[in-house]
């Protein structure tokens, strides 16, 4: 019983630490004292939830879904609709209402996820991808044509109510759920489905139930994030949840590493900040930075070229030294190619004359990220590795092995 007591003690401490961390993030945001930073931190938290929940479906269970924005949308509209029509009647407000809306958004998205997942998860690989994309578009088109939800103008005047700690607490809950799931017997069956469906079936795993469970949990968290988005923005409209949003979430998962929760968190924070970073870029005269078309095309071509070169060289590199040399030389190739191509392309008049604001490069950078990551490291930056403190245990207790170490 002593070990059980210690187990719950550790759980309790990590829960408290997690909540403390969320409030810590909030107080950091308040210290920065700027609604702009608050906004960035809230969006980062929402994207972390979205990316980790998609990773549960794509990375951990291996079911390639690319319509995640649909569940985000269902959550946002469910919470928005109920807030607009019933908030005053129910005489509620504040954190209780926010909590209720997160639950409502989560449940609405989970129901949608179940309805979508049950038939489509019979498919695999690229077909599943297309069908999830299709369901996402159908949901968006239905919302767009539904007058009760505001149609293509969107839903206005949702009572605004948000808290940074709530957004990050949702993200922390999502991370904790996925992490703890992976350490349980259920989680191992998720991994078994990813590795080999037929073998998992032979071992007695109910693969349909595993897939649908992962899909429902993933969409539930996306819906809860949507509810928080609706209450943060006070306005939702169909373009906020288009195919592009799905692809942005997918890029986060792919960049961080399909299967790595840590990777998704880092990539979500990084990629949700990227557009804001591009917007703040300035030239010498403190105007928004304009980049010449020739320079952009040169950048795209040399990035793709050097990535292809790196891939080729990594295939032949046998040890760490070889890999380092390959990486170093392809970075050198990238820089040389960029420097050489820019003046060459400046000779092409329409390209040289075109001046493009840096913030318009957002989706181009996402697209390039997808291609380059697939070329040089298809498993993503972190692969399947996770941030953990296990190495500490190994240092202090060298004779104990973790039960779930894979």
């Amino acid at each position, binding site marked *: 019983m002593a070990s059980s007591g210690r187990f719950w003690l550790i759980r309790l401490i990590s829960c408290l630490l997690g909540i403390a961390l969320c409030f810590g993030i909030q107080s950091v945001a308040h210290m920065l004292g700027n609604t702009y930073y608050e906004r960035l931190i809230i969006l980062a938290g929402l994207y972390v939830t979205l990316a980790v929940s998609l990773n549960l479906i794509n990375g951990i269970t291996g079911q390639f879904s690319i319509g995640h924005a649909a569940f985000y949308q269902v959550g946002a509209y469910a919470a928005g609709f109920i807030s607009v029509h019933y908030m005053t009647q129910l005489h509620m407000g504040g954190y209780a209402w926010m909590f209720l809306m997160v639950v409502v958004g989560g449940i609405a998205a989970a129901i949608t996820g179940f309805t979508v997942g049950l038939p489509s998860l019979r498919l695999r690989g690229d077909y599943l991808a297309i069908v999830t994309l299709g369901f996402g578009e159908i949901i968006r*088109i239905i919302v767009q044509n539904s007058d009760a939800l505001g149609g293509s103008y969107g839903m206005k005047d949702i009572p605004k109510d948000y808290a940074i700690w709530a957004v990050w607490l949702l993200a922390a809950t999502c991370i904790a759920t996925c992490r703890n799931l992976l350490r349980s017997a259920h989680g191992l069956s998720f991994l078994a489905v990813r590795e080999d469906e037929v073998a998992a079936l032979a071992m007695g795993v109910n693969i349909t139930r595993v897939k649908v469970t992962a899909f429902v949990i993933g969409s539930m968290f996306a819906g809860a994030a949507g509810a928080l988005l609706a209450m943060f923005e006070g306005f939702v409209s169909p373009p906020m949840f288009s195919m592009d949003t799905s692809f942005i979430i997918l890029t986060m998962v792919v960049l961080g590493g399909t299967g790595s929760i840590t990777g998704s968190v880092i990539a979500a924070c990084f990629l949700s900040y990227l557009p804001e970073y591009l917007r703040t870029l300035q030239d010498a005269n403190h105007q928004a930075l304009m980049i010449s078309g020739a320079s952009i095309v040169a950048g795209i071509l040399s990035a793709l070229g050097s990535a292809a070169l790196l891939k080729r060289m990594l295939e032949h590199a046998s040890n760490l030294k070889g890999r380092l040399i390959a990486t170093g030389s392809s970075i050198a190739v990238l820089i040389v190619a960029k420097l050489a191509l820019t003046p060459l392309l400046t000779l092409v008049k329409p390209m040289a004359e075109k001046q493009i604001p840096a913030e318009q490069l957002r989706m181009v950078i996402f697209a390039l990220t997808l291609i380059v990551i697939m*070329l040089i490291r298809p498993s993503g930056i972190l692969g399947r590795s996770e941030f953990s403190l296990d190495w500490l245990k190994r240092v202090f207790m060298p004779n104990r092995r973790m039960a779930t170490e894979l």
Partner: protein
Amino acid sequence: MHPSYLIVAGLDFTALPQQLVNGLLLGAIYALIALGYTMVYGVLKLINFAHGEVYMLGAYTALFTSWYFGFLPNLNQYPNSSFWILLIMLAGSMIVCAIIGVLIERFAYRPMRNNSRIASLITAIGVSLLFQYGGALFLPNSPPPSVAEKVNPFGGAFSVPIIPADAKLSEVVKATQPDYEQKKKDLEEYLASTGQEEFSSDPQVVAKRDAKQAAEQSYMDAKRKLETSGVKVTIQRGQLTMLLTAIVLMLGLRYLVLKTPAGRAMRAVSLDFDSAALMGINVDRVITWTFVIGSAMAGAGAMMTATFLGTPLTTQYGVQPGVKAFVAAVLGGIGNIPGAALGGILMGVAENLVVWIGFSQYRDAIAFVVLIFILLYRPGGLLGSAKVEKV
């Protein structure tokens, strides 16, 4: 008399033939695009997500070619159009698309060939987004330009009667026409002889004008009744050209695939990639040719929609047709060339039927509904083999 017996359960069946014909014409274009998806899937087992963007670039090529021939936007006087300009636009779009398709294959898909299919799919999504948003930085898209209507020498439309007009009504028209013309002539002669304006308040003029208007009213009424009494189909000459070109191209493709050594190699690679390579077929070359042909077909489709339908061009131009054509390919049985043609036409018809039923705002959703049902209940497609992939 309006054929009211043709309105059943709120559906106007008199409009049905027109919608079916529109669907057929649109479906021919979907079929052309679907060929590219199905051929690439046949040899590489890859959904070429960037195919819609190849189509978009084909439409822009047609736009730039028409500008080169002087059909610039907002001109008062357009140069004379000819069949040859259209042919050059078609060839230009096909060649440019073929080159882009080959480049995409060579630099994006070939390096990924040994990786998993999901990795290739993500690459394809990346390429598609890169063209959409990279293209938006350079191509004119706001306000969306469109190919000048005047470039099309096959202007105008003609009608084909399905149910002939009521004979009694045509006699009424014939009876009222001389009266109307007589009254009109009276008024004009009187005005010419007295030198008055048509809308003067002279009682003589007012009387003649009222008489003319009454006669005109009854003549026009009779004419309108005559027109709506039958059922007919109106076809734009440009759209007909589109259909004929699509048929010629598809027959050409069929000959290429079935009767030439290159086509045989293509079928062999599609049947079994590794064995084909062992039999001495240069697989890389076959894949390159697959992309050449598939992309050229998309280019032809793009040039024709841009020219004959006059749709405004944006860099998202290829997204919806691309999705619908992909669904068409799956519907017909992906990897199956006649299936792609059949699926394209069915998709075009289905889309127009949705419009006819009155759900025109859902015309873009029908593709996905069809896709989901076909994948769930007949994953092999209509003409494909219904084998389910295991492992």
